[in-house]
């Protein structure tokens, strides 16, 4: 199989033609806005504030300050953002129920502040850190990514976060670190889904990445969405976002990051190994055993002309990530 090498410049860095043609105008506008920006650096992400009257989540003060300083991200060319109300009202977060509207309904009292994260395993500096200390050295930036659910629906979401690789480097991985394992909070008192007798999933939820995947600049840890803090239903206060993999890889409400030598036992793979692999890369050529992955419905979708689009290899991020899997049989390692 021929896999293209990643170009030196990721496509996200390339100035789009429309911006290039309007560069003088844009520069002028930026200069004019400079004074305002200095007084109110929030400008960039504040543009979302007026878009909906749904509940916003400012987060603790220290986080709000960091979010306000975040650099705005590049839009996904030709694809519009999924509205805030849909991004925060249509979630798979089985800890709060199986229905798509359950997380929003049942997670509002989920306590995400204070929050601690354990860093352990094959690292030089293991320990348990408050979220504030964990985030301190990292500047936040917006990343607008496609999200492709394994159930064949998709969204475009403006996350705010920072590269996962930057965090991992800080804790000095040892030579034995081959994988990164993430664990979601286990707290049945707060998470009704973890009390369900009929669930086939084992708690806590565990996900993992190979080390080179985790170090890839597209993989981020997100603390915000649409310019504000993450709502509890979206995995507050800290979640993974790996845009070239199915959504379930992007684990929510992380309490532990452990570097390991062995491949982590990830939840969906443990539950149904024939349906969910460890890699779970978006791949239109490898169907889920029960349904097709060749197309997806971009949400929100209008009833009488459903927005059906072809699913792209690695969710459209093939140029950046395909080299990670060169020589691998992606049918076997699905």
């Amino acid at each position: 199989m021929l896999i293209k090498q990643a170009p030196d410049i990721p496509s996200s860095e390339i100035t789009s033609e429309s911006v290039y043609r309007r560069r003088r105008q844009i520069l002028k506008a930026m200069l004019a806005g400079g004074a305002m920006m200095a007084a109110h650096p929030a400008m960039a992400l504040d543009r979302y504030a007026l878009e909906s009257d749904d509940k916003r989540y400012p987060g603790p003060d220290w986080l709000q300050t960091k979010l306000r300083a975040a650099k705005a991200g590049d839009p996904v060319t030709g694809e519009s953002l999924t509205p805030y109300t849909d991004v925060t009202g249509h979630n798979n977060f089985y800890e709060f129920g199986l229905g798509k509207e359950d997380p929003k309904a049942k997670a509002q009292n989920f306590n995400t502040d204070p929050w601690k994260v354990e860093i352990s395993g094959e690292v030089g500096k293991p320990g348990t850190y408050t979220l504030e200390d964990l985030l301190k050295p990292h500047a936040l930036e917006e990343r607008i990514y496609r999200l492709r659910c394994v159930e064949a629906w998709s969204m475009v979401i403006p996350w705010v976060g920072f590269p996962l690789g930057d965090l991992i480097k800080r804790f000095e991985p040892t030579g034995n670190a081959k994988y990164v394992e993430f664990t979601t909070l286990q707290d049945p008192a707060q998470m009704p889904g973890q009390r369900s007798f009929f669930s086939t999933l084992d708690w806590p939820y565990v996900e993992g990445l190979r080390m080179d995947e985790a170090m890839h600049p597209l993989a981020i840890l997100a603390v915000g969405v649409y310019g504000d803090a993450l709502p509890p239903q979206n995995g507050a206060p800290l979640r993974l976002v790996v845009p070239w993999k199915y959504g379930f890889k992007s684990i929510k409400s992380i309490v532990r990051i452990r570097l390991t030598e062995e491949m982590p036992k990830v939840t969906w793979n443990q539950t149904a190994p024939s349906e969910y692999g460890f890699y779970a890369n978006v791949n239109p050529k490898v169907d889920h055993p029960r349904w097709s992955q060749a197309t997806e419905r971009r949400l929100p979708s209008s009833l009488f002309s459903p927005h059906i689009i072809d699913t792209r290899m690695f969710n459209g991020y093939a140029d950046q990530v395909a080299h990670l899997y060169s020589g691998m049989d992606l049918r076997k390692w699905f």
Partner: protein
Amino acid sequence: MVLSIADIHRSSTGRRVFWWLMFLLPLMPLAWIVFKTLEQDLGADPAQTIVTFLGLWTLRFLLITLAVTPVRRVFGWLWAQRYRRMYGLYTLFYACLHLLAFATFILGWRPDLIARELSERPYIIVGFIAWLGLVALGMTSTRGWVRRLGRRWQQLHYLVYPIAVLAMIHFAWLIRAGFGQVLFYALLLALLLGYRVKSLVKRRAGIVHPS
């Protein structure tokens, strides 16, 4: 004075009023989902919500239809028999809406997607076969067909049992995690089918039910 449903059926006005009640009630789920759709109150994925809702009501009407005979015999509710065909036809009605909603809202009537779903997806194939079975039963539910088919009519309409099993498989195959709901409906179906097995065994043993 308390009137039982059997009492109501003694007068022709009572029968007519009750018939209309039984006829209009099953339209409530449809009215509700149409209302929610017009209100745009179905979340980010109304297509999936509508299809799932109609599918669930198809299954519920199928179970109600299958419950008529046991209920008539166990509780002596002879009036229930009058509504068996109506609820069978409502099962078909909701099954058609379910299929139509799937083809329109999820597949957008794209021929390539329809061909793919019908040839490759076991749960779709199973559901489609169940629908074809319901169509056959619905079409032969008229008095004319009952007369024309004679004894074979009953044999044909025993198809409702395999149809119900296929519908349950279709439902269970969609589950990713959490089997509580499927288990509930599967138990109901097992109960209703178990009753038939029990009657069959009794009949073989020579005890004949009045029916």
